[in-house]
């Protein structure tokens, strides 16, 4: 980090400027796979918030004692610990959501957002900053996934968070809850984000 940002800036960059999905195109695998409904996207986001914040805290605290040569395995062990906790918690308290997310919760271990934040940020910054950064990034991820899931659910089923929005005469666009819908919606969202950014920098 060349320039030290304020804590607020550290938090806000995850929401927009360095939004992991829309700006950096990280973590696309869960983004595309689980956003067939708003609730799935949202719970995936929550799992990532938990994992990222906890592992960033641990890594940041331990950053001075982790040998540089084995830092990646260390990151993975720490991340895997919290992913396992999140996975078991989901399975115990929200079995339906756990079933819907399928293998994608355990796969958070190899989610590049989390790995990337450890390597690029938590291992180089004090713990306060690391937590703020992790919160910003994971909340940015959650918001993006929830919006993506909402759009797909709205057009593909006619509901958002299982609340009927569309009139009953609306015929669902089945394609939106299938895989192509994920690619189409994400592509358009990234396009809109780039467009807004282009206008802002003008």
């Amino acid at each position, binding site marked *: 980090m060349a320039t030290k940002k304020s804590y607020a800036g550290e938090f806000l960059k995850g929401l927009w400027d360095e939004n992991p999905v829309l700006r950096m195109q990280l973590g696309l695998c869960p983004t595309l796979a689980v956003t067939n409904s708003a609730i799935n996207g949202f719970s995936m986001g929550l799992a990532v918030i938990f994992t990222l914040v906890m592992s960033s805290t641990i890594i940041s605290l331990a950053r001075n004692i982790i040998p540089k040569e084995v830092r990646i395995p260390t990151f993975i062990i720490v991340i895997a610990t919290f992913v396992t906790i999140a996975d078991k918690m989901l399975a115990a308290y929200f079995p339906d959501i756990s079933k819907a997310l399928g293998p994608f919760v355990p796969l958070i271990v190899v989610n590049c957002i989390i790995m990337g934040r450890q390597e690029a940020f938590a291992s180089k910054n004090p713990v306060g900053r690391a937590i703020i950064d992790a919160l910003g990034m994971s909340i940015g991820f959650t918001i993006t996934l929830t919006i993506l899931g909402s759009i797909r659910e709205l057009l593909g089923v006619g509901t958002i968070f299982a609340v009927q929005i569309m009139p009953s005469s609306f015929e669902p666009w*089945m*394609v939106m809850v299938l895989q192509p819908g994920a690619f*189409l919606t994400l592509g358009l969202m990234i396009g809109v984000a780039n467009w807004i950014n282009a206008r802002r920098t003008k």
Partner: protein
Amino acid sequence: MEENKQPVSEGKTTEKKETKATPAAKEKKSEKMFLLRSSPHMATTDNVPRIMWTVIAALMPAVVYGVYNFGFSVLLTILWSVIAAVVTEIVTNKMRGRDMKNGDGSAVLTGLLLAMTLPPGFPKAYAAIGSVFAIAIGKQIFGGLGYNIFNPALLGRAFLQASFSVKMTTWTAPVSMDAITTATPLGSFKFEKVMTPYFDLFMGRIGGCIGETSALLIIIGGIYLLIKKYADWRIPVSYLGTVFILGGLFWLINPEQYPDPVFHLFSGGLMLGAFFMATDMVTSPVTPRGTWIYGVGLGIVLIVIRLFGGLPEGVMYSILFMNAFVPLINRYTRLKIFGEPKK
């Protein structure tokens, strides 16, 4: 314009003159609106709007027959689809800051082609959604006419197929028949092993999409395009030829299970696809050799889908599938530049 018509051999001298000319002289020339281009110089009356409107005209017999066959309401479906396509084209061009003075008719053609591939009873509003998708996502996202990878009309249809699969496979019977719904010839063969008489297939007295039923009228329109050279004759020849030969092979192996090659040729959307969709100038290869590869590939994919796939018809997917390979085909069949050393 005079400059444009210079014969090829004089190209060099023109260039020499050009290099000698002072910048000031150049400016003067440009003020007079002379068009200076390097050779070869060709004068042609063909342009994009003319080609598009010719293709639309060539489709008209099949469209008129579709309206006659399925009743007046399909005319409304076509209108909805075309209007939605044109409106989307105008809006997206505005958003992209493009000049709309040179409206080229390609949106009309896309809307029309899309409507022709829809079942007759398809809800009109959904046809419009398909058109919007075809133009906005199928064409403009890629950079507009000439830059799209996939045939926009077929992409719109694929979207509708994936979204409203039940409505896309509900076939209304022609008004001349005494029935409300009917299977398409391909569907009834695949699922019930019932053959449709050749004459009905050829003339179009069958169930199917709005514009695909009459092989005869599509062939007439298609041949007109081939004569005008707006469609490459190699594509329909290689596409239909591959289907005939490959379909025939399977028929010889087991005539009970597989339909005969003539049935393959005249059923479903093959004629429409082969003459009007696979030949789309933007999404077909530019080299003659590439065109043959493309056509043969189309035929193989189609036969595989028809005989072994879950769907009765595969023209749409065969064309979209091969569209994806066109950049690759173009790259590997690049013509040798004259004088280029052999490897």
